């Protein structure tokens, strides 16, 4: 049985006896790209697929689906909590842990279909013509995304149904992966400032990074308010820098490194570098890796003992 048909079988069971209202998975779009699919009817189940272009982090959609009145708003009395099923990769499953720790929804509201993932191909989620316009390799070339070359998990941490052969050993990270992080660390402050200003200069503040992010779920974004006294929502360089650095800071200890923000960026800003740098810092300071368990990030708790820093 292929992975696609296993996902379809799981979805069929879940929808048939009304365990969930929607199955969030992947389908093939009209131009051949793989895209998110929201399956609510049994007749649509055939649309669900799995391939190495299933790059989207579908946990992004959970908050809106499970809290239809808006985040933190209770349902009207008498209504049963919403339930949804979601297809996740190893990285996405860590996002579920973060969202659970932050009480966005209950674990019972969720049926997680975990897929053992062999890595997602570079250029996934884009139609072929766009891929060649961006000079990205063909899907046939088999080049994995950078995050997948670094991945050490492969098997989801959270799941109710596991699809695919469980890998006993975490796959070693790709040895030849170029590390931009170390290259930047080696620069002088002036060079780094120039590098980042050149990156942020391209930002058009479309907020695609924020929309694609499962952790960016504030009801009203701090960086998109025109009544703020000291956070600008304009397109000046310092305002754009504050947006990107501030967003990275808000994700510190929460970002699970799915790199969707970077993938969806139309201006190709290497946003994931900021997130990775902070993940290193948070792990060094607090010994915390986001999403490994449903525990809150370190910034919302007090110091464990005076002057310990931890």
């Amino acid at each position, binding site marked *: 049985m292929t992975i696609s048909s296993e996902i379809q079988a799981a979805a069929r069971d879940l929808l048939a006896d009304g365990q969930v209202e929607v199955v969030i998975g992947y389908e093939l779009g009209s131009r051949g790209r793989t895209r998110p699919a929201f399956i609510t009817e049994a007749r649509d189940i055939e649309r669900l697929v799995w391939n190495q272009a299933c790059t989207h982090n579908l946990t992004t959609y959970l908050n809106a689906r499970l809290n239809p009145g808006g985040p933190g708003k209770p349902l009207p009395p008498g209504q049963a909590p919403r339930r949804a099923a979601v297809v996740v990769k190893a990285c996405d499953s860590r996002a579920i842990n973060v969202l659970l720790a932050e009480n966005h929804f209950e674990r019972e509201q969720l049926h997680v279909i975990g897929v053992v993932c062999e890595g997602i191909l570079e250029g996934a989620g884009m139609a072929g013509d766009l891929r060649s316009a961006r000079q990205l390799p063909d899907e046939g070339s088999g080049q994995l995304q950078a995050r997948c070359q670094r991945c050490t998990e492969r098997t989801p941490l959270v799941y109710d149904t596991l699809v695919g052969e469980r890998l006993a050993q975490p796959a070693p990270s790709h040895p030849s992966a170029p590390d931009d992080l170390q290259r930047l660390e080696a620069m002088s402050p002036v060079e780094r400032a120039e590098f*980042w200003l050149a990156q942020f200069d391209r930002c058009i503040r479309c907020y695609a990074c924020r929309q694609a992010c499962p952790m960016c779920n504030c009801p009203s974004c701090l960086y998109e308010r025109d009544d703020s006294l000291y956070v600008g929502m304009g397109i000046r360089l*310092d305002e754009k820098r504050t947006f990107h650095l*501030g967003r990275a800071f808000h994700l510190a200890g929460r970002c699970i490194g799915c790199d969707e923000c970077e993938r969806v960026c139309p201006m190709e800003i290497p946003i994931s570098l900021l997130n990775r740098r902070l993940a290193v810092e948070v792990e060094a300071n607090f010994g915390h890796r986001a999403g490994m368990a449903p525990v809150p990030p370190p910034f919302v708790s007090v110091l464990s003992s005076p002057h310990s820093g931890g």
Partner: protein
Amino acid sequence: MMFEPKIIAYLCTWCSYTGADSAGIARLKYPSNLRAVRVPCSGRVSPELIMRTFDQGADGVLVLGCHIGECHYDTGNHRTAKRVPVLQALMTFAGLEPERLRLDWVSASEGERFARIVNEFTEGVRLLGPCAWRQRRVWEQHLDLQDALDGAALGEAGGAA
């Protein structure tokens, strides 16, 4: 002429601001480069506020709060103690010299400690020279001009002095 850095200090009203008062009462000398901003708690100093301070032309930002365990709000300074080092790492990664941002603790009676920290910090920032964090691109100049015309250049009037 020697470079005079512009230093903004966020002082917690319960400890560090009173500590600055103690320094004054004791007639201790500390550099006049310091502009004190009184905040209810060092936990109020958000990362956006610190970045904004540098955006507006500060050469150094000093955040002073109560010692751990002495916070008026119990754990406000715990938040600061966790946040600022990570923000410092982030801003360093984005091109700021880490010495330009400093978090320290000063209690209400520690006037001498306050003066010492301000002296150390000011001399450190003076050695670094003017801060490059606030850079303008050519295309931003017409926005600045528009602001000046609108008379809306908040905080800029002090920057020229």
